[in-house]
């Protein structure tokens, strides 16, 4: 059979054989390919902090000293809200201050900006949102965020006798606080809870539940009618955590919520409210009241199934309506429902998780920092707030910041109604912004719980372990709320 030496000169003679070449280059590739992509991302620039641009005299009208003829660079996340609102803002800003704005609307915040933060030449204003946002706790730890306190204490554009901070909805400043400093302005006001179709409920004669037992009852009726009770965005356990955490806060009161944010040793373990909340949710799983397969669906898949009347409830924030606008039937009548109550809850049914999202930041190293700060102050004027509501169909953190002539869609309208009913009874967790790793670990545990692979007690154990681990974070000392 085949001989080993017929073409022997091939391997020893002049140079490499073709196959050898392929083999060697392949071996080289084996080393370099998997590591290449992230290595190239590692290259950071030198640390060259530069002066923060030209500054004009500080006056009452110009509290940060914006200089005429300077440049202002704005980067916004172009997601569910689009970026038309930002373009309108920039035009207004240039007109007033004689600046030249440049605009970038993108979904790749990390990809576009990480290099620039590292290189010390970030833009002047950034809307740091979306799946590829740069985590705020990370930016803060690296000293990349300008303190926004001067903006909060500056006179408001609408009423110079009032400070900007007095016109914000409660909780906004806390939401943007890292290590005791306000470093981000979360501009969009969002409420969290369950959502249902007003049309479906009317057709079936179901009443929106106020207690968890009533909630289970509607889910059971839905199952009997051949549709799922609760749908959730299983691939992203972030959403089901809203249910768990809201149940804990409402059952145990604000103390139970703060215990988690403050990483108390009994945040979950030994907390009666936490165990009751997880057990209540687990009842939905045990009784088979979930939309079949929902644990593996993405947010769009599950929300679309819900829009097709395949499930009664879905948890989400108030961006849901805008996100699903194309998939929602015209007569769907989207409605918001505050988290139903467990027995002996400390907060009333009307209490809701409400918080500010879409964080706008001014980088500490921004070339035109005065311009960036002034931009933030302008965002908090009634004029700019109305522009946002019109272009992006959402509410802002400016109190009564929307002109009453703007007509809202049913879901947003129901959220506004719920917000009014809640009054002072709003709450919001801060740990997801403070401790990314803990948040991820709790999400993993929730995913296991929903798939029936762990029991409520095991969930509590894992959540507490995540808390204990986060407590070793050097920032845990500064990140405290009371």
């Amino acid at each position, binding site marked *: 059979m085949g001989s080993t030496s017929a073409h022997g000169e091939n391997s020893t003679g002049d140079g490499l054989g073709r196959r050898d070449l392929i083999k060697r280059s392949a071996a080289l590739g084996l080393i370099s390919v998997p*590591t290449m992509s992230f290595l190239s991302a590692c290259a950071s620039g030198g640390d060259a902090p530069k002066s923060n641009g030209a500054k004009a005299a500080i006056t009452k009208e110009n509290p940060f000293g914006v200089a005429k003829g300077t440049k202002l660079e704005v980067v916004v996340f172009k997601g569910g809200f689009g970026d038309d609102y930002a373009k309108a803002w920039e035009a207004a800003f240039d007109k007033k201050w004689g600046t030249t704005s440049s605009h970038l609307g993108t979904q790749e915040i990390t990809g576009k900006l990480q290099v620039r933060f*590292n290189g010390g030449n970030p833009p002047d204003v950034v809307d740091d949102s979306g799946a590829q946002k740069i985590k705020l706790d990370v930016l803060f730890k690296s000293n990349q965020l300008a303190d926004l306190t001067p903006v909060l204490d500056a006179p408001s554009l609408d009423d110079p006798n009032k400070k900007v901070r007095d016109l914000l909805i409660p909780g906004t400043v806390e939401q943007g606080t890292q290590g005791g400093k306000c470093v981000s302005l979360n501009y969009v006001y969002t409420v969290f809870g369950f959502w249902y179709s007003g049309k479906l409920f009317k057709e079936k004669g179901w009443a929106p539940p106020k207690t968890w037992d009533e909630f289970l009852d509607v889910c059971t009726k839905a199952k009997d009618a051949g549709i799922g009770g609760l749908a959730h965005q299983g691939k992203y*356990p972030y959403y089901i955590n809203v249910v768990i955490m809201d149940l804990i806060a409402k059952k145990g009161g604000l103390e139970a919520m703060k215990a988690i944010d403050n990483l108390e040793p009994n945040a979950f373990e030994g907390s009666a409210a936490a165990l009751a909340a997880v057990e209540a949710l687990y009842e939905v799983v045990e009784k088979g009241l979930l939309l079949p397969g929902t644990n593996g669906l993405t947010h769009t898949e599950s929300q679309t199934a819900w829009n097709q009347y395949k499930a009664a409830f879905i948890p989400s924030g108030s961006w849901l309506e805008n996100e699903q606008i194309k998939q929602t039937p015209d007569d769907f009548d989207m409605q918001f429902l505050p988290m139903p109550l467990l027995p002996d809850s400390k907060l009333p049914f009307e209490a809701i998780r409400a918080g500010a999202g879409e964080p706008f930041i001014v980088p500490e190293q921004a070339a035109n920092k005065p311009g960036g700060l002034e931009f933030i102050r302008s965002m908090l004027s009634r004029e700019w707030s109305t522009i946002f509501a019109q272009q992006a169909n959402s509410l802002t953190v400016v109190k009564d910041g929307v002109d009453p002539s703007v007509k809202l869609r049913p879901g947003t309208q129901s959220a506004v109604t719920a917000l009014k009913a809640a009054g002072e009874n709003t709450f919001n967790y801060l740990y997801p912004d403070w401790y990314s790793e803990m948040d991820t670990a709790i999400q993993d545990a929730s995913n296991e719980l929903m798939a029936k692979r762990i029991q409520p007690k095991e969930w509590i154990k894992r959540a507490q372990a995540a808390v204990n681990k986060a407590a070793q974070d050097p920032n845990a000392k500064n990140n405290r709320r009371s």
Partner: protein
Amino acid sequence: MSHVAQGRGRGGFIAGFLFAPLALYLTFVIWPYVQTFGYSFTNWTGQSPTFDFVGLDNYSALTKDEVFRGALWHNVLLLVFVPTITILLALFFAFMVNAGGRGGAGGVQGVRGSAFYKIVYFFPQVLSLAILAVLFGAVYRSDEGGLLNGVLTRLGLVDPQTPVEWLNEPRFVLWCLLLVVVWHGVGFYLVLFSAAMQSIPKDIYEAALLDGAGRAQTFFKVTLPLLWDSVQTSAVYLGIAAMDMFVLVSTMTSGQFGGGPDHHSEVMATVLMRNFLYFGKSGYACAMGVVMLALTMILSLVTLRATRRERIEF
């Protein structure tokens, strides 16, 4: 001009041409490696040019990181199964397409319609990994809308109330991903092996046939030994795919940069990316990168050593 000087002149000439690529290689390949090595001893967050030197802290933390160890184990599993299954299937199909037909007296041929099969098999290779992820996302979808679940419920094998959550099922998720890689790869290696098989002189096969060798004997005694170089190359290439897996895992499975459910599909690259970009532990991630580099170097050496055989020429 003396012979030696002439040789030197030529050397300089060649070196001149090599300088630019070498400089590029040093700048864009070697230098980042060196930087990574440096960063792996720091607590760099990835978002700022300032950091502290922490010595070997990252490496000692790495030895205790169960998620990373689990990811490493998954990479090892993939490393064993991806090349083995892909190469075996590709070899089998390539043999059937090229030499598996009923051997008439006239010579050696593939099964009927082999030209058509070759095109069909190659087709998956044309798709990018991103498209593949979307495609198989629809196949593995966890409710009745998924292709697999849809078929299985219609056949009465799965209860529509409890569909199989393929990618959310710890026991299945890794194998589901493995199937995608194999499906993607078999066609390419089939064509590669086909080309190699076609370069084997027909008379060898004819001689084997005349000696009364069956299909299996022909394959193991003739085809495989003559294809060994191609198989070896394939193993190395598939090793790359198995060590990486980042695109598929991060897009198809749950979790930040994938790896879910509960780290059951984690590979080293996903753990690395999560630490690098999401947790702000870039120095730690660089330590992972260094470990990956070391492992892949060892691996490629072992692969080339272990598969080394006496060359068979024809």
